């Protein structure tokens, strides 16, 4: 361990030295001034206001109102219909099997022991098969762990068993440091005897599954005691219970009927395995079919309403283009209207659902999905013309006959400087006898995060000719689509290209 501690100390020292060295050398570095950020375009607010006013107008049309109402009513209808068509769930765990038939009934709520027994008697009164009550339990996973002096691990699960324990609390010996009455230490096998009927049927709850293995709370965090003591420990005034073990075969069909307000879960266990019936209602095929039919009805109404909005949307898109929106800006009007309509409808339904306790189900998901797809299917993809001009390449080289390097250089610099589309951040100019070089870094003036770097190298070829090499690279602070940055790059290059073309044609000599 000393060796390990020494290695750890050496690593700490090395890291400390490395970072201190970086700080010392870093203090000699210079700060770079950043520019350009102050220009968040003020027209953004105006653009959003314009958009909001257009949306207000579109949303207050009868068509939009019909769309919202259709979806909200369909959602509410789906909730009512699905609550009648949902089924209780059942699944089989083949690994849990016992020789004698057993049924473990888990109650929805904890109740006094006598009430529990009476309820079970009346529940099973119509059963023709013979049965007997084998055990009554109180099983609770506590919200706040119970800490006991002298016990290492906090206790999460309290299990009360009838006819057990003679006034002591049983804890795993793995968790108890020293005897601490009334807490008594037992080995884990003995503890398991109380928690697993016949060694396989768990009375304690399954906390989760990892893969296919059920995960139970560790035995070190369980307290087993009598029903009376467990009830007292959990703050009940009288003995209570919430799990009943019944011996004998009880038909699953009968037990399924018992699920509801009183019983939350039933395990019917035989030599074939365990059939677990829960009161958890799940979506049935009937519900899905209902959702599909409702979706078709909604689709018919929504598509008609959406079609009737088309002329108005087209008109709005034209106005947007005149107001300076991008050509495809108009196309998103439909998306926004659809999104807002569905949001309003879902909000209205959610309010109604909370008031009347309506459930959310898979049907709702199908319905909303169908609504969005139908509405988007009627969205005009383009309401404007998008240019398809060829973008400038990022590198080109041109030979110019009859070239005067210095004059050409001045024209190039002038072309870079005199532009209303870009703000120059850096401009580097180098002149030699037979060579000249210009490098510029510009930001597109409509934004603060898109820019173009241009390098122009002019070198003489022979006596009177020269070669101009132009290299451009676009960049953006965020990922703006390549098509857009390409067009910005083309815009920047077009100025240089025009100067070069004029020289080639001899107009600038």
């Amino acid at each position, binding site marked *: 361990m000393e060796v390990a*501690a020494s*290695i*750890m*100390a050496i*690593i*700490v020292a*090395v*890291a400390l030295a*490395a*970072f*201190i*060295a*970086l*700080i010392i050398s*870093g*203090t000699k*570095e*210079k*700060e770079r001034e*950043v520019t350009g950020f102050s220009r*968040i*375009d003020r027209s*953004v607010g105006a653009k959003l206001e314009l*958009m909001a006013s257009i949306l207000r107008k579109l949303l207050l049309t009868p068509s939009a109102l019909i769309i919202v109402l259709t979806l909200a009513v369909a959602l509410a209808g789906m909730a009512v219909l699905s609550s009648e068509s949902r089924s209780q*769930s*059942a*699944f089989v765990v083949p690994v849990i099997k016992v020789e004698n038939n057993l049924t473990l009934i888990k109650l929805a709520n904890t109740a006094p022991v006598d009430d529990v027994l009476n309820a079970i008697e009346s529940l099973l009164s119509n059963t023709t098969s013979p049965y007997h009550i084998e055990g009554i339990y109180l099983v609770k996973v506590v*919200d*706040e762990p119970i*800490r006991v002096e002298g016990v290492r*691990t*906090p206790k999460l699960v309290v299990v009360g068993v009838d006819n057990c324990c003679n006034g002591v609390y049983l804890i795993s010996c793995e968790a108890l440091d020293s005897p601490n009455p009334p807490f008594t230490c037992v080995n884990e096998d003995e503890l398991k005897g109380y928690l697993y009927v016949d060694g396989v049927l768990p009375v304690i709850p399954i*906390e*989760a*599954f*990892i*893969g296919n*293995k*059920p*995960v139970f709370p*560790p035995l*070190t*965090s369980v307290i087993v005691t009598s029903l009376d003591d467990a009830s007292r420990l959990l703050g009940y005034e009288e003995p209570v219970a919430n799990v009943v073990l019944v011996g004998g075969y009880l038909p699953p069909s009968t037990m399924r009927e018992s699920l509801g307000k009183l019983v939350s879960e039933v395990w019917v266990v035989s030599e074939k395995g365990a059939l677990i019936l829960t009161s*958890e209602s*799940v*979506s049935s095929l009937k519900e899905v079919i209902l959702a599909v039919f409702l979706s078709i009805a909604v689709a018919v109404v929504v598509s008609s309403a959406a079609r009737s909005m088309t002329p108005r949307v087209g008109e709005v898109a034209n106005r947007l283009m005149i107001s300076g*929106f*991008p050509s495809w*800006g108009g196309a998103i009007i439909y*998306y926004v209207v659809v*999104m807002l309509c569905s949001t309003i409808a879902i909000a209205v339904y959610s309010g109604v659902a909370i008031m009347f306790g309506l459930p*959310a189900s*898979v049907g*709702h998901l199908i319905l909303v999905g169908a609504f969005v797809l139908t509405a988007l299917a009627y969205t005009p993809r383009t309401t404007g013309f998008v240019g398809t001009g060829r973008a400038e390449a990022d590198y080109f080289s041109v030979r110019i006959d009859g070239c005067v390097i210095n004059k050409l250089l001045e024209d190039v610099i002038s072309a870079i400087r005199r532009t209303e589309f870009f703000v120059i951040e850096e401009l580097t100019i180098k002149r030699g006898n037979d060579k000249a070089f210009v490098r510029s870094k510009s930001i597109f003036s*409509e*934004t603060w995060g898109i820019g173009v770097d241009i390098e122009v190298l002019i070198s003489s070829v022979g006596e009177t000719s020269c070669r101009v090499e132009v290299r451009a690279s676009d*960049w953006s602070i*965020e*990922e703006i*689509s390549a098509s857009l940055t390409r067009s910005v790059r083309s815009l920047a290059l077009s100025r240089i290209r025009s100067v070069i073309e004029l020289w080639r044609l001899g107009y600038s000599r």
Partner: protein
Amino acid sequence: MPRLKRAVIVGTLIGAVMGFVDTYGYAVTGYTTAELSLVITPVLVMVVYRLLMKSVPSPSEQLLASLVAVGSSLSTTITSGMYITYTMLAAMVDPGVIGLPQWLYYSGPLTPMHYLFYIFASASSLSGVLLAYAFSEHFISKERLHYPIGVSASLSILISRAVSSKEVALVFAAGLVTELLLGVLGFPLLDLTPSLQGIVPGMAFAVGTDVLVLLLALMLPLSVTAGVALGSISMFLVILPIMAFAGFFAAFPGMGVYDIVSSAAPTMSSFIIGYVIVITAFYFLNYRGVFLSSLRFIVKTRETRTSLLIALTIQLLTIILAAVIITHNSYFPPAFIPIVFLVSFLLSIVTMRMVGETGTASQALLPLGTATILASGARGAMPYVLADPYTGVPMPQFMAGTGMNVIKATEKVGAPKRLAVGLLGLSVLVFAPLTLLYGHVLLSTYGISSPRLNLSRWIPIVAWMSSLYSGGEGSIVVPAAIVGAITFFIVLALTRSLKSLAGLSAFAFLLGTTLTPDMGMLFAVAALIKFIAYRMGTDVYEALLAYASVALSGAGAGIMITTVMSALGVV
């Protein structure tokens, strides 16, 4: 220099508070904002400068002060965070059985060994920052990666300078109030998973309201946001049902989204391992030329060479320690040291790459580290504690990703790079004992029985870790790993053949597969908002980014206030 001193003083003051807030947040709820502290802190720094110093710092000074505070926040993930995690583990399983030494968890007063180990773990994690420093030119200049959290931090710095303007204050307040309301009222979650199990077992779908996640998603590039959403939705609507059908995990009626996540944990981890192996191989094959030239450049330059050497030496020594420290029931075969070291290094590189695209790698890549140790035949907790970045303490990959975001932010605001990296590293080391102490004080005050930190929530994690430490039977599902590898090729084929998916990042898809569907839906909503904003014009799009970063700072401040209110017993 006087400005540096001022930055260090302000950063230390904020760091001392943030370290406590993050530790408390983790101790009582299991959540921390440490990963986003780089975006949140600059606004706090500006407020403190204005209130205490009556001045406005330069962007560079503001960043340096923020980095000092961020160091404290980051150290909580290594010190108090892991101290609390191991205390939970020791509470749920017998530490002796899994060979968990006492100096890892709370069992009485802190000993010198506690301090030494957690400071060492911080130093070892910082090797990731040195790697980031060495490779920063490669990833930022050559691969031209965006590092969205770094960009977001720089936006936060630049916008907070106009904090007095009404618009910015309003957006900050909106983020803060929304987060406060959600924090006090709880985060509503509409979970359709229980009903779905009756129709398609293994399928999960939920809609959540985590505003912090939504704002983070807005900050990421559109293709990444959409990729994350697609990854999450594909995982929970398609891939998991297929694997449930194949019988890889149990999916029963009534199971909620978190039950499914827990049940599918080994399957999902295995899927990720398959995906990560292929994407890592693919990345290195594709970038081998650029990468080798960068490596040559790093080796030629004295400064980067030294950083690289120190980082690699620290990582190697840490893994050697896993074989040296033998506790009861712990064993790590020395022959596997080079393999684990190589995987750790590769994971650091790929994490830096992934963070460049997605902002955060979360823990998406790390199960590969766990699988390597498992494959070595290691037993007991110690090999994992020291050499596994997923369940262990040293986290060089996490630090490497954060380091790259820091360097990106440094470049954006024009701050001195070496100074920034040095301050960050020193701050993590200096704050490590303090944040460990915070964790200890909170554990000795509240124990592990906070009503908000239900211990039973830890049972599945502990069961998985315990199974891992005992040899890991059933921890890795090989067919699921094969499905993961195939999925990568499907994603690759789709992005290359479909024009609409051309910009989709395979790393973003991977990150998405690790996020629950409620988060996936938030990413989908964010992608839609970004899509619309982009079509309204790049100016609107950029304004959305700028305001989202301010709102994110507000939401982060909201979490801090909720945490303090919780500590005072108000909520």
